[in-house]
C-alpha cells in the first residue's frame, strides 16, 4: 500500500466511525495503520482479497472457525485479540493438526476507540507469532453504534494433520483414560470477575493459551494410542465430556478429587452458585487415550509448561445412556450433565 493512504490516525483519542468501514480511503488507512503492522507477514502483504500459499505436502487438512464476542474485551490474562488466536489454534490442534494460517474478520461498533483496536490487533499478532501461525487475510466491517458490542472477531484457521494421525470425537472406547491438561474454570472465573455487574474480585487469570505445542508433545508421547482431544471451552468440562460421550457412544466415569481446580476458582463458584465443571477454559484440553499409554502421556504433558497440572481424571465406560458419572470427593456418585440454560449466578 503506497504512502498515499498512510495518514496519521489519532490512536490516542480517535474512534472508529462509519467511514472506516465504507471501502474507501479511510478504511485503507485503518487497515494500514492498525492491522498490517500488527499481523505483518508476506502473505497478508499481497494485498488481495484472498491470500495464496503453497498447498501443504501430504497429510490431511483441517479447517475451523469461531466467533469471539467476549465481554469485557480486555480481561485478566488476555483480550479478545489473543483469545481469537488461541481459540482457533486450539480447535486445529485438537485434531492433531499443525495450525498454519488464520483469517480474521473484525466487526467493529462505531465509536470503538482506535487505541483499543490497535491494542487488540497487536495482541492478536503477538499471539499468532507465539503460536507459530500466520494471519494471512482479513476483513473489517463497521456497524452503527448500538448494533455491536465494541468489537467482535471471527477467526478461521487451517492446518495439516500428519499422515497416520486420526483424532476424532467418536474414537473413545470403554477402558480409555480421560486426561485434562490442567485446572478447570480459570477463564470463565477471570471473565466473570471482570464483569461490571458482578462485584467480586480475584487474582485468577484466564488460561488463554495456544495448545499446539503441548499437542505436539502429546502426539510424540502417545502416538496412535491417542484417541481424541477437545478443548473444554463454552460449557466447560461437563459439556465437552457429554459431547464426547454422545459422539463416541460411551459413558465416562470421572473422579471429582482428581480434577484440578484452583482454590480461588472453587471459591468464586461457591459464592456464585456455579459448578466449576460448567465453567469455560481457553488453554486446557481433554484427551482420551488408550489405558496403556495414559501414564506416559501424562508424564509427557507434565513436562510441558501448559500441561504441568495434567491429570488422569477418569475413564470411558460402556453405557448405552452415555452418562458422564462422577464419584464425588464426598464419596457418592452423581451425573455431570450439560448446563441447562446459561451460566448465571444463582441465589438458590
Amino acid at each position: 500500500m503506497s504512502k498515499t493512504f498512510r495518514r496519521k490516525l489519532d490512536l490516542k483519542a480517535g474512534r472508529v466511525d462509519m467511514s472506516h468501514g465504507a471501502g474507501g480511503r479511510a478504511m485503507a488507512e485503518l487497515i494500514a495503520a492498525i492491522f498490517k503492522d500488527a499481523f505483518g507477514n508476506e502473505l497478508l502483504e499481497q494485498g488481495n482479497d484472498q491470500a495464496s500459499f503453497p498447498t501443504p505436502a501430504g497429510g490431511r487438512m483441517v479447517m475451523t472457525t469461531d466467533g469471539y464476542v467476549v465481554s469485557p474485551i480486555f480481561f485478566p490474562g488476555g483480550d479478545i485479540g489473543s483469545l481469537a488466536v488461541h481459540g482457533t489454534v486450539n480447535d486445529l490442534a485438537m485434531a492433531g493438526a499443525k495450525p498454519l494460517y488464520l483469517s480474521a474478520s473484525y466487526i467493529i461498533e462505531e465509536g470503538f476507540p482506535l487505541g483499543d483496536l490497535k491494542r487488540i490487533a497487536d495482541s492478536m499478532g503477538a499471539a499468532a507469532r507465539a503460536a507459530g501461525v500466520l494471519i494471512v487475510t482479513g476483513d473489517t466491517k463497521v456497524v452503527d453504534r448500538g448494533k455491536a458490542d465494541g468489537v467482535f472477531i471471527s477467526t478461521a484457521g487451517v492446518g495439516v494433520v500428519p499422515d497416520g494421525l486420526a483424532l476424532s470425537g467418536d474414537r473413545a472406547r470403554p477402558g480409555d483414560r480421560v486426561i485434562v491438561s490442567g485446572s478447570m474454570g480459570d477463564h470463565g472465573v477471570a471473565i466473570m470477575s471482570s464483569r461490571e455487574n458482578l462485584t467480586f474480585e480475584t487474582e485468577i487469570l484466564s488460561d488463554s493459551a495456544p495448545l499446539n505445542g503441548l499437542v505436539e508433545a502429546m502426539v510424540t508421547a502417545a502416538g496412535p494410542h491417542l484417541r481424541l482431544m477437545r478443548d473444554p471451552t463454552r460449557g466447560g468440562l461437563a459439556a465437552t465430556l457429554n459431547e464426547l460421550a454422545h459422539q463416541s457412544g460411551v459413558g465416562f466415569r470421572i473422579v471429582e478429587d482428581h480434577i484440578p481446580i484452583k482454590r480461588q476458582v472453587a471459591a468464586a463458584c461457591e459464592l456464585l452458585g456455579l459448578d466449576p465443571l460448567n465453567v469455560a477454559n481457553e488453554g486446557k484440553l481433554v484427551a482420551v487415550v488408550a489405558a496403556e499409554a495414559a501414564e506416559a502421556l501424562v508424564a509427557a504433558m507434565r513436562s510441558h509448561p501448559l500441561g504441568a497440572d495434567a491429570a488422569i481424571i477418569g475413564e470411558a465406560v460402556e453405557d448405552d445412556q452415555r452418562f458422564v458419572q462422577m464419584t464425588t470427593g464426598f464419596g457418592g456418585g452423581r451425573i455431570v450433565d450439560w448446563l441447562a440454560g446459561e451460566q448465571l449466578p444463582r441465589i438458590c
Partner: protein
Amino acid sequence: MCLAVPALVTELLPDNMAKISLDGVSMTISVALVKNVAVGDYVIVHVGYALSKVDPDEARRTLDLLDEARGVPLAVGAAR
C-alpha cells in the same frame, strides 16, 4: 434454596458495607442485618448480605460430634 457461604470479613466500609474474602475471592457485601460485625469474623453471605456470624466454638463442636462417628468400621457396599 438460599445459597449462602461463610466468608471472612476483611474490612468494614461505610454505610453498613464490608469487604469479605473467600479463599482469595473478595466481595463487597452489606452487613446491615448483623450486629457487631468485626474484621476477622466469619459471616454467612447470601445475595450480597451477611445473615449471621459463624460461631467458631460451635463450629468446632460440630466437627467433634462428627468425629464421634469415627472408628466405627465402614460397611463397604452396604450403602443402598
